[in-house]
């Protein structure tokens, strides 16, 4: 390897006096209660992970109550209604409040350190997502204490969850809880995509990126495509519950299976959304314990991408028993089996790396949890192959066999790697390591307890015990097996208890940066010495394990000899590089601690909560307060090029302000457009699906004739004119310091045009006599407008914001990020509206 000599380093010694002190000052974490305003990724990351773990404990306690109830047949520890709430809360909390947030938390906590970035590109966005999640999650979980918890099962199938069969607010609280997670997941996805692609250190091309970063990148991409399906599903369900638009009611042309398609199109990738980051963590720990690079790095990257890809093609394997045609079952059966191959690649690659250890593979607490993961996850994968066989699934679907299967996959595939992570990465954020002794006790209790609890469940299910039953007869051969499972569950819980003791005794988080050092001799950048500012300087990376291949790297980085050893703009900043080759492009100025995003999260939570309990006026007030807080939050984020260009070392001088496709904001908007596109595609699928199910409901047979073509033509012309105005506005932005009314006027016209287009479309259908509650066709038709209104509101807010910025002279041809955000969303919205018109007005004419 061509190793750089000392003279090749970007910055020379000695460093100017006061440089490090200034960095510390700039990155200081607020003290005392003000820590709530903190945004440093290490601080909010630990808090995020802490809350996810709290929800793990809460849902775990719920599980113990259920296991106690099931210990003996005919038991009366909890009654039917409470039990139905308990299993719904257990599943929902584990999936939505623990597993996904825990993985996002690890992204927030570990990614910047692995990439030697000073923070994630949108520090307040991740803090906002965390606060929204914490408030929403706690309120949601507390419903169990006053009998308001949802009781429709974690996948909430209608018609059971429609108002007719689930009156009361219970189901609405589920939809609310999920709403928060959807928002924070999407915020996290934006953060992670932009973070992994743009804030890697110079020289860390994609092929040198740590596997965990790859896994998180794919994780984020999967969220972008999977979550919109459940967002749409929850919107449809809440709209049907609140306003009676019949998407799922068979008697009005809806179909309960539409929910299942949408939910599992999200729900199955969700399992891999949880598993991929965990596999990424294992791929980091195994090489460290083997003291040699991972064997098959490229193959593993391909496997991760393949898993992400396949996972979108097997949602129907949750629906094998719904009576779908055999041909489609065969297709989904084949894909469900194919997804085992990427997992096989990873398992064999880990075995190969273990075998190739320098000396012997070190058995530490993290490696024990990794080995436990290998055993449990492999078995879970194998039973997964079994249930992918349609006939076998018809027997074991919705029984304890499947309960056993997915706990092997999820506890094996996610919880064990997470505990490995706790023990492995604790020294990075804690002044003290966790105890190896207590760690081993934790592992053995958890491993034994887990298998005692869940291995017998395979048999319980085969003997006919369905899941989600709160009681069972004593003479059908399930009693002994259930008793064993209950004992195992308590052993598992004892293991978790020992871990908590360990945490209390030894976990001492430092307020951002500088932990107990690198106890494992690992090769990746998160083990660089650091402080609140993360690494002292951002290293030039030449390999996948820089700490192994560049022996002096830690010292050089700490001395400030690599890039950006200072704070040239006087504020927080990190280096943004090109997405593939990682060539330095600009210095990103980042916001520090603040309250605006905290308030935005509180008021957003208030909005949804108040709406759930039907307090509409306070809800609207809270919503307005949320928007004001967001404007306050955003106001400082487009500073303009006031700081000029700054040197970062090695003679490289970079701008501190960019706009357009090179800027991180542009990338975030593009991610958002992808999310909106997926949401819209899910809608188009739903529209066409409902037509396939009930063609008779469609206009002109089952509903009033469509409005005359002049309506959609006028609507389309309006939005096209708006798009043209937007384009023109982009060219007419004034030069800095020379205000002009042209651009704001064009923006205002564009916003009004889109509003007009959306309103016209709704009016047209209203005057034709169509009412959304009439049948599935009407509901699907108006739903297009709901999505268009959603984009329209976002466009109007962004345009209004840009107009306000330009009126106070903060928007011009150079300082234009606020305008660009609107200019990205607008054409997307225009295209969506035009496609809606084509679908809603064209399709029935064509099909009718």
């Amino acid at each position, binding site marked *: 390897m061509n190793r750089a000599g000392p003279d090749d380093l970007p910055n020379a010694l000695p460093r100017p006096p006061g440089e490090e002190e200034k960095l510390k000052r700039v990155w200081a974490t607020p003290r005392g209660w003000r820590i709530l305003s903190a945004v440093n990724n290490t601080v909010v990351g630990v808090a995020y992970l802490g809350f996810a773990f709290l929800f793990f404990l809460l849902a775990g306690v719920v599980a113990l109550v259920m296991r106690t109830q099931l210990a003996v047949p005919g038991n009366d520890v909890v009654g039917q209604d409470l039990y139905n709430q308990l299993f719904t809360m257990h599943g929902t909390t584990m999936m939505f409040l623990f597993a996904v947030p825990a993985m996002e938390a690890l992204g927030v906590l570990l990614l910047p350190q692995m990439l030697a970035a000073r923070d994630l590109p949108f520090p307040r966005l991740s803090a906002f997502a965390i606060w929204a999640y914490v408030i929403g999650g706690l309120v949601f979980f507390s419903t169990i204490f006053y009998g308001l918890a949802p009781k429709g099962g974690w996948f909430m199938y209608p018609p059971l969850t429609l108002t007719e069969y689930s009156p009361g607010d219970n189901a609405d609280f589920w939809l609310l809880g999920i709403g928060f997670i959807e928002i924070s997941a999407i915020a996290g996805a934006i953060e992670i995509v932009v973070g992994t692609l743009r804030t890697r250190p110079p020289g860390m091309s994609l092929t040198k990126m740590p596997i965990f970063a790859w896994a998180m990148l794919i994780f984020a991409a999967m969220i972008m495509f999977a979550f919109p399906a459940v967002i749409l599903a929850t919107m449809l369900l809440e709209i049907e519950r609140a306003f009676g638009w019949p998407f799922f009611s068979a008697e009005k042309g809806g179909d309960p299976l539409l929910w299942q398609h949408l939910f599992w199109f999200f729900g199955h990738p969700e399992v891999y959304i949880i598993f991929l980051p965990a596999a990424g963590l294992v791929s980091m720990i195994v090489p460290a314990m083997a003291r040699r690079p991972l064997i098959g790095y490229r*193959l593993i990257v391909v496997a991760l991408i393949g898993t992400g890809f396949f996972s979108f093609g097997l949602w129907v394997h949750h629906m094998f028993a719904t009576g779908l045609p055999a041909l489609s079952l065969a297709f989904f059966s084949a894909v469900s089996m194919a997804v085992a191959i990427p997992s096989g690649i990873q398992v064999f690659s880990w075995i190969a790396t273990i075998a190739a250890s320098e000396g012997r593979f070190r058995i530490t607490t993290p490696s024990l949890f990794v080995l436990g993961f290998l055993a449990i996850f492999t078995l879970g994968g194998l039973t997964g192959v079994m249930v992918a066989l349609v006939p076998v699934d018809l027997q074991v679907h919705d029984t304890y066999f499947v309960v056993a299967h997915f706990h092997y996959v999820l506890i094996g595939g996610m919880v064990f790697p997470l505990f490995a992570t706790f023990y492995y990465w604790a020294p990075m954020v804690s002044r003290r390591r966790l105890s190896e002794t207590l760690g081993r006790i934790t592992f053995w209790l958890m491993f034994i307890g887990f298998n005692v609890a869940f291995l017998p469940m395979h048999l319980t299910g085969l003997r006919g015990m369905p*899941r989600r039953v709160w*009681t069972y007869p004593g003479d059908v051969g399930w009693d002994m097996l259930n008793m064993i499972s209950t004992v195992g569950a308590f052993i598992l819980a004892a293991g978790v208890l020992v871990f908590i003791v360990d945490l209390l005794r030894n976990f001492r988080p430092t307020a951002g940066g500088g932990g107990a050092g690198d106890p494992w001799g690992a090769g990746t950048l998160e083990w660089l010495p650091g402080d609140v500012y993360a690494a002292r300087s951002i290293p030039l990376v030449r390999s996948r394990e820089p700490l192994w291949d560049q022996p002096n790297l830690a010292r050089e980085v700490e001395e400030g000899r690599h890039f950006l050893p200072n704070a040239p703009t006087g504020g927080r900043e990190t280096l943004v590089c090109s997405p593939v080759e990682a060539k330095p492009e600009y210095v990103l100025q980042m916001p520090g601690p603040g309250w605006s995003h905290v308030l935005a999260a509180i008021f957003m939570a208030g909005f949804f909560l108040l709406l759930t309990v039907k307090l509409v006026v306070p809800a609207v007030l809270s919503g307005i307060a949320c928007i004001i807080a967001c404007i306050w939050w955003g106001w400082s984020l487009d500073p303009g090029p006031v700081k000029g260009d700054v040197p970062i070392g090695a003679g490289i001088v970079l701008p501190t302000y960019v706009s357009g496709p090179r800027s991180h904001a542009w990338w975030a908007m593009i991610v958002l457009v992808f999310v909106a596109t997926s949401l819209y595609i899910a809608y188009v699928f739903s529209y066409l699906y409902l037509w396939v199910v009930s063609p008779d409901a469609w206009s002109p047979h089952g509903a009033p004739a469509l409005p005359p073509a002049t309506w959609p033509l006028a609507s389309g012309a309006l939005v096209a004119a708006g798009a043209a105005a937007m384009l023109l506005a982009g060219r007419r932005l004034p030069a800095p310091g020379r205000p002009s009314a042209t651009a704001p006027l064009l923006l205002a016209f564009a916003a009004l045009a889109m509003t007009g287009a959306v309103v016209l479309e709704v009016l047209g259908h209203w005057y034709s006599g169509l009412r959304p509650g009439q049948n599935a066709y009407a509901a699907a038709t108006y739903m297009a407008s709901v999505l268009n209104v959603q984009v329209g509101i976002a466009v109007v807010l962004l345009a209004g914001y840009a107009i306000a910025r330009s009126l106070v002279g903060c928007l011009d041809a150079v300082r234009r990020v606020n305008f660009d955000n609107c200019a990205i969303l607008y054409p997307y919205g225009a295209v969506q509206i035009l496609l809606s018109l084509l679908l809603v007005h064209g399709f029935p004419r064509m099909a009718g």
Partner: protein
Amino acid sequence: MARPARVLACTCSSAMLPLAGCAGIQSALVPKGGEALDIDPLFWTSAGVAMAVMAMVTILVAVALRGPVRWRQVLSREWFLTGGGIVLPIVVLTFLLVYGFLVMQAGATRMSAAGEHVVTVTGKRWWWRVVYRTPEGREVESANELRLPVGRKVMVRLLSDDVIHSFWVPQLAGKLDMIPGRINVLTLEAAEPGISRGQCAEYCGGAHALMAFHVVAMPAAEYDAWLAREAMPARVPASAEEERGAALFTANGCGACHTIAGTRAQGRLGPDLTHVGSRRSIGAATLPNDAAAFARWIAENDHIKPENLMPPYRNLAPDELRALGAFLDLLE
């Protein structure tokens, strides 16, 4: 809330299962007909493959951890990775997939051969409406129990008009959902006489756990005779107590929800009671079928099966309940 102890009815006949007792009555591992018999070998094959692969991975990990250096070198070669991670899974999975398709094909063939004997089962909250079609085309209604003629293929049409349920008799076939707005068809074929237990497998809210039923497979000739009897109107009360029970049944408005063929009780909301006394259980396999259980059910069904849609009749005196129980028990 204090609740009397529940006795979930299993009611298998010890004469038919002399050794196993009731264990196995709902087990997919003790197949007794049609689809379940086809799935069984596929299940065991896939389970065998899974156990073999599990053993292989365990051994490989052990070798990777502590094996001789030379073996470990083999394990870290590129061909090991591609062989174990790609080639092996493709071969094994293709084999299983093809086998699975063959079993599915067998199911499709069985379905096309059925058609003459039709039973319609409708999932209700939280019980089963069962309607037989006699060879003459008459409809005969029953509930919470399905009788099958041994050796004949029976087409079971599965419906629901409230929420989604799933019809599952593990000893006879895999499960199939009952979905509002759709008709799913399952072919059942009992290979031997006997009693089997089925249960709703799709969570349907409230008393989902207490929504089970029995399947009674009987020799074809016996079945035909039984169906002919089932098509007849209910027995008339003989004793004074039964008479009193019948009068109470009418007086308390039971007929608004229940049908007893041959009487003025023609309600459609609850299970048909014309021959309720001949069934193996009441409350969808929640209680055994006898006069005392009927009395208990009428008075406190909200404790026995919470949230079920029948109101409890606590206003009735013990002797009135006894009379009602005697009357219902008579309806064989």
